[in-house]
């Protein structure tokens, strides 16, 4: 270990070792923490460590995106859902239907890791060096990634935009409460994703807005029109 690390400069080696320790400790914390909130915070630690390693490897743009998107958006989304669902949910280990799975999983994981490390010993990076898409200096990292995304991988970029739209629409459809089952909790699964309801706009994400039992006069017409129709049919002359 020492002779390989000695080839690097001292600040680089120190940075790598510190970031690696932070990454591994955070990853172990994600797996071992009892509280899901602690797992999410440990995940932030790992993500920051990986961002430091990205900077160390001349990927400055990806380091910034890692902090902004992962730590800033994805983990916040995780924490939001954890708080929404309740933080005091313990894992029911005492009624574990597969008691032998944990030791077997740990053994298989360690065996797989040892196998990879032993087989690849000393000859990790193989392949020809690039002749067209050079990495460049740290100063023009963003330019190079931008040129790569918008020329070579333009089709993949467009497909990515379609994927994001589908994901947003899917999240809205999944998270809304079915209109014809006001309780929502004991509705059949098909009602949760009832396709004929369509999208009513931003208010569709608010479960109270689409609930006819609590839909007040301030709710938009689209959300409450069916409820008004139903009321007029029942109570009208």
């Amino acid at each position: 270990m020492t002779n390989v690390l000695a080839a690097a400069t001292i600040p680089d080696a120190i940075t790598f070792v510190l970031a690696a320790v932070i990454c591994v400790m955070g990853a172990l914390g994600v797996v071992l923490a009892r509280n899901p909130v602690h797992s999410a915070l440990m995940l932030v630690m790992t993500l920051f460590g990986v961002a430091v390693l990205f900077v160390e490897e001349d990927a400055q743009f990806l380091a910034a995106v890692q902090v902004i998107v992962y730590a800033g958006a994805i983990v916040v989304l995780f924490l939001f859902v954890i708080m929404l669902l309740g933080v005091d949910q313990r894992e029911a280990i005492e009624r574990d239907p597969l008691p032998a799975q944990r030791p077997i999983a740990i053994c298989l994981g360690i065996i797989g890791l040892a196998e990879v490390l032993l087989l690849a010993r000393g000859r990790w990076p193989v392949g020809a060096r690039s002749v067209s898409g050079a990495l460049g200096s740290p100063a023009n990292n963003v330019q190079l990634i931008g040129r790569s995304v918008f020329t070579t991988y333009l089709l993949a970029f467009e497909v990515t935009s379609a994927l994001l739209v589908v994901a947003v629409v899917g999240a809205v459809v999944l998270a809304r409460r079915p209109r014809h089952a006001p309780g929502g909790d004991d509705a059949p699964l098909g009602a949760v994703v009832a396709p004929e309801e369509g999208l009513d706009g931003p208010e569709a994400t608010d479960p109270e807005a689409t609930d006819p039992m609590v839909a007040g006069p301030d709710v938009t017409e689209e959300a409450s029109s069916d409820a008004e129709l139903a009321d007029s049919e029942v109570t009208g002359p």
Partner: protein
Amino acid sequence: MTVEASWYLTLAAVLFTIGAIGLLIRRNVLVMFMCVELMLNAANLTFVTFARRLNDIAGQTAVFFVLVVAAAEVVVGLGIIVSIYRRRPGASADDIHGLKG
């Protein structure tokens, strides 16, 4: 000179293994999801390492797309988890067997 690429790849393998073991031994659906994120990060680290080693920007572009796909995956996955918990609160991964054939 920076640290050898093999150390980065070793670290990525360790991170991936921790994520895979966590995915297998935890029963909380949210923590399992976080372990998937750990595995994605290990793969990203491998991509960036090879991009530097082979002097190719395409590795970093691949990480860019992985980030976008991970964001979309988290949005849809958490939506599914919220709708599952709305039907049966406190469900662990073992309780969600309604989709089995």
